């Protein structure tokens, strides 16, 4: 009987082994699809544009991934990113390169604050982060009476490394994103935090009963999200050489999309930074691909929405979601 069982398991395992590659497959199909519709898409210069676009999106989404894997959500990313763009713009002329680490630190702090509100005041993350996001927007508006803060020539020097530097014709942001991606994967694979966030997402009571300080790790996750959002915002500010209270507007939904489109479950426990890398790429390809193929702009949102649902349909592993809510 044990034999029969193991056979069962084997078949199951095959499915388990294939499933993770669904997102990647989807991505490749997309690239080829667009390229067939509009030859010249899959060439270096275009793809590097996609890369640049996907990079910033990914940096934001990477942070979000940690939160979503814990079963929460961080709706404050775009507010945090905009806020960060203001901070970095204000700081660059004064402290030069230090502006970036400081900004990321600030992001970390506001992220932790969001996490604290969510965990300690026991407010669902959806509302908690919505509210903290509003507060951040308020702050960034106050910082310069709603004005855009331009990074003047002096500060711009320190921006070039993100803004317009290319290495072998690949935009630097892409490399930065790559670093973030690798770091993220390492964190997930090799650190307590990574391991525990999966445990908490997949079985919070069990994690508690194993003595894991659930609250602490949740707050940490929001901290990371904030820090990366800030980093994304800083990068944006550098590319646009100024900060503004609505710089990152409209980035929230693409960010969420980038996370879930590659099969990270909104319910938590399932997913990885790796998936988000693919997800960000998918979102950018769809977005830019539409422009490239020349889909009527009026219809682009429709296509985007449909593509989103389809991608999720293909990529999520339902066996790990007990009840689909």
């Amino acid at each position, binding site marked *: *009987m*044990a034999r029969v*069982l193991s056979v069962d398991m084997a078949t199951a395992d095959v499915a388990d082994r294939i499933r993770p590659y669904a997102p990647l497959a989807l991505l490749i199909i997309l690239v080829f699809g667009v390229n067939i519709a509009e030859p010249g898409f899959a060439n270096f210069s275009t793809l590097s544009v996609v890369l640049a676009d996907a990079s910033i999106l990914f940096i934001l989404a990477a942070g979000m991934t940690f939160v979503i894997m814990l*079963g929460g959500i961080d*709706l404050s990313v775009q507010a945090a990113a905009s806020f960060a763009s203001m901070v970095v713009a204000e700081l660059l002329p004064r402290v030069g390169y230090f502006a970036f680490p400081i900004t990321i630190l600030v992001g970390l702090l506001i992220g932790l604050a969001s996490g604290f*509100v*969510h*965990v300690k*005041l*026991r*407010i*669902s*993350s*959806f*509302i*908690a982060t*919505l*509210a*903290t*996001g*509003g*507060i951040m*927007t*308020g*702050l960034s*508006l*106050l910082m310069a*009476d*709603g004005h855009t803060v331009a990074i003047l020539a002096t500060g711009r020097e320190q921006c070039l490394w993100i803004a317009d530097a290319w290495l072998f014709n690949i935009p630097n942001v892409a490399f930065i994103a790559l670093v973030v991606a690798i770091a993220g994967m390492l964190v997930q694979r090799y650190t307590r935090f990574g391991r525990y966030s999966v445990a908490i997402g997949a079985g*919070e*009571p069990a994690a*508690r009963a194993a003595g894991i300080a659930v609250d602490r790790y949740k707050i940490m996750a929001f901290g990371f999200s904030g820090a990366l959002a800030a980093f994304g915002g800083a990068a944006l500010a550098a590319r646009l050489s100024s900060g503004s209270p609505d710089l990152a507007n409209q980035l929230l*939904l693409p960010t*969420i*999309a980038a996370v*879930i489109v590659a099969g990270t*479950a*909104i*319910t*938590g426990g399932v997913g990885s930074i790796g998936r988000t890398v693919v997800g960000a790429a998918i979102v950018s390809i769809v977005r830019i691909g539409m422009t490239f193929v020349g889909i009527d702009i*009026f*219809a*682009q*949102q*429709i*296509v*985007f*929405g*449909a593509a*989103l*649902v389809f991608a*999720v*349909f293909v990529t*999520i592993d*339902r066996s790990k*979601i*007990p*009840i*689909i*809510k």
Partner: protein
Amino acid sequence: MALASQSAPPEAGADSQVRTPRTKHSRAPGGGGSVWRARLLEFGPLLVLIALCLCLGALNPSFFSFRNLVWGLANSAAIPLILAMGATFIILMGSIDLSVEGVLSVGATIVVLLCINDSNANNFGWWGPLLAIAACTALGFLNGFVHVVLRIPSFMATLGLWFVGLGIGTVALGGSAVRVLDPHIRALAFERVLAFPLPVWFAAAAFLFALFLERRTRFGRYVYAIGGGEDIAELSGVPVKRTRILAFTLAGFFTGLAAVLAVAQLGQANTTIADGRMFMTVTAVVVGGTALTGGWGGVGNSLVGVLIVQVLANGMVLLGVSPYVHEAVQGLMIIAAVALSIRRGGSLMIK
């Protein structure tokens, strides 16, 4: 043999047990005290609302002026309330509907383009609003269908339809803001009955209807059952799939109604007509004390929640709060409101 009993699929097992921590921790045997606390908590949001009103009234007497109560509050609360009615049932099931804005803009577009307007020669009279509501209801159904049949978490499914809806709206309007010239439609917004403008009455009707559904129909029961424990509900023979789809369809219907009123009020439709509605609706529902995890709360709570949010917005204008800090203040107040009123007994896990 060891594996026999264990490898048996635990029909209810796994998940009926998932609930035990809740029952165990929150309501330890003979925990009579917690019952009272729960009872009190149910009135938390209401207390918050009353407190808010009193503060505002003290700071600016004109808050209690008849005109403000009717126009500043009741009238501006009408559309949010109608939207909240739909969202409540969905959130009670532990799901969420992000597509409100998309669906609403579709509805608005249809109304405008079918009634007398300044961009085409149509004049379908009351068919405009009716078809709009029908279309929104259909979109709601689509939401439920995609979610239930394709087994995609509602969060993603509705996120998709959000974009689709906005897209449809943009295509149909070609971007321009189309004005509705049909006096009957405009009357929906301005006609007054017993000093209250029609939208208030519509909202009241919607509320009573939702209350009726919640309290007096099987649908209402099933929604709570699903939110309380989908697996048990299923075991007891509750038609879970049907109920879920129905709830989303219902939400579509309410959104359609809201769309008609929005057009009537604004006298035009543009694709930004629904901007910010979704977050506002969910916030209102949650502030009212309905848990995003499902099972607890109800349309009554949502009424209170909507009023809290509206009073906040109205109050900030009444007090002339600087626009720079609007969002910040709103954020703080919402955190405070929820923290004061949220049901803690429910579950150890807050997601």
